[in-house]
């Protein structure tokens, strides 16, 4: 980002200032504070940790994450070292990120509504700038009967429980794999969500190895992410932004500045980047910023507010 540019890429998410619109998505690289610091130094406007639960989870056997023509497919199984370890990583990461002005988003999940509250309370001790509640992992429905994000009543209950256990602004991460994402978004906002993260990966999907006739993922099915899901993500973000008044952290297949601008045009406050790290490395954050900035400069925009929701009138 050039310092003499007249373009301002900063944005605000639930009252938290981000130096630019790009956010490291949960589940990518967000395991150790050293790597999260490196992502921040690489130009991310905010960094989200990998989702953690009250107890540690080893996740599924490999293969857990694979690249295919359309993007990635993954069934990691929410592996994480548990909130007691993650609280220390969050604390250390915050120390690294604060001087850079880059906020930290701590992602949590749980297998019961009650434990969502417990995880939120524990992780809040490390004072992340935002708490993201992952109720939408597509890979654990067999364990949990169904995603918490699949039912508006359950999604609201989780949100309420988390809000009771933290004073930090809460983002609830929704799934595209539902009949009506708007209904879920409205339910979590009514229950107190300060913002929405949309969307988690698509599916689950299946890729087979036709020589052995087996699924390539050890878990059999996995969440689909990357370019293949982007048009669906943009539609979900549009639907949510039209229906609720809270800020939306939009993600799903964003790999370039033009993709990020699309998300802003349908009303997003900030834009998550995950799978694109596989294509462009950690440099993707600065590259996307440069591309957004070039677009804004050539089109005469000076801040993101001038672009935000600009496409909504055409639907």
């Amino acid at each position: 980002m050039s310092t003499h540019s007249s373009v301002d890429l900063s944005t605000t998410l639930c009252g938290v200032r981000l130096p630019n619109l790009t956010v490291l998505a949960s589940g990518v690289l967000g395991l150790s504070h050293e790597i999260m610091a490196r992502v921040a130094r690489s130009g991310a406007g905010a960094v989200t940790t990998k989702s953690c639960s009250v107890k540690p989870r080893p996740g599924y056997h490999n293969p857990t994450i694979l690249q295919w023509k359309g993007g990635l497919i993954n069934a990691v199984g929410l592996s994480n070292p548990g909130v007691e370890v993650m609280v220390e990583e969050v604390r250390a990461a915050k120390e690294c990120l604060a001087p850079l002005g880059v906020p930290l988003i701590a992602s949590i999940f749980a297998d019961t509504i009650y434990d969502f509250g417990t995880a939120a309370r524990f992780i809040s001790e490390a004072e992340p700038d935002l708490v993201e509640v992952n109720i939408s992992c597509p890979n654990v429905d067999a364990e949990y009967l169904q995603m918490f994000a699949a039912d508006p009543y359950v999604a609201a209950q989780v949100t309420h429980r988390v809000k009771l256990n933290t004073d930090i602004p809460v983002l609830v991460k929704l799934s595209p794999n539902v009949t009506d994402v708007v209904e879920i978004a409205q339910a979590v906002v009514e229950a107190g969500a300060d913002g929405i993260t949309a969307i988690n990966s698509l599916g689950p999907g299946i890729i087979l190895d036709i020589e052995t006739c087996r699924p390539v993922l050890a878990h059999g099915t996995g969440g689909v992410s990357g370019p293949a899901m982007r048009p669906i993500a943009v539609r979900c973000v549009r639907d949510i932004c039209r229906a609720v008044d809270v800020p939306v952290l939009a993600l799903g297949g964003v790999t370039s500045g033009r993709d990020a601008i699309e998300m802003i045009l349908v009303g997003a406050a900030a834009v998550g980047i995950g799978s694109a790290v596989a294509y462009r490395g950690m440099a993707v954050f600065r590259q996307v910023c440069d591309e957004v900035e070039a677009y804004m400069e050539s089109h005469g925009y000076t801040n993101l507010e001038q672009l935000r929701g600009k496409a909504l009138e055409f639907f």
Partner: protein
Amino acid sequence: MSLPQTVRIRQIREDTHTIRTLVLEAEVPEAKPGQFVMIWLPGLDEKPMSIAHPTPLTVTVASVGPFTMKLHQKKVGDTIGWRGPYGRGFSLREDVPALLLGGGCGVGPMRFLATHAVERGVPTTVAIGARTGSELACMGDFEALGVNLILTTDNGSRGHQGYVTQAIEIFAARNSEFAVYACGPEPMLVAIHRVCREREIPGQLSLERYMKCGFGICGQCALDGFLVCQDGPVFGVEQLDGLRDFGQARRTATGRRLPLRNG
């Protein structure tokens, strides 16, 4: 490109009672010495393995746990999967002689590098270390390449008695300038790192960590601020100075940092 390809095992060679070399029905001509592939046993797991030879794809594997034990039980004609190549390999210096140090199945990537060095006309010496003479692996591969060989065993049953790191001293007595390349158990790499830094010898070391993706996205292989899968697995000795995790800690499948098991 990155979905695993399942192929048959063309050939299996028993190198020692714990180390085997598997040749697959696959060609990876774009691979560079020091790069790795993810080897998949369908229905079981997938692990990173350094490439011992690219055409046909060859890996040298020590039986150290449930996965490698199952891999050792595979027969010629059985099907396994692979994807890659991944990572940053060795960067061979062509202006100075090369001293390659391999411990255990770490001789695998040293074979690939030695082949490359010989092709480039770089004077090459390979040092192989093991606990006993019967555990020295792949000597025939290096003899066939025509490189100088230094053998070390902990008990002195073959070659020089002592650790493979002693080969640096032996080599330094005859060569004023050279570069070190090594792969093996981490305590061995820590010792080599120390010698290289004390004597100001340029060196590159191939490290190993638990991995999920292999292409820089899961963060599971974090070594301080490095990703072993992308920034490594080969690191310059200067990159490893002062790292908290080098020789000390690894991450498990949960992502938790635990003390490195030595040996």
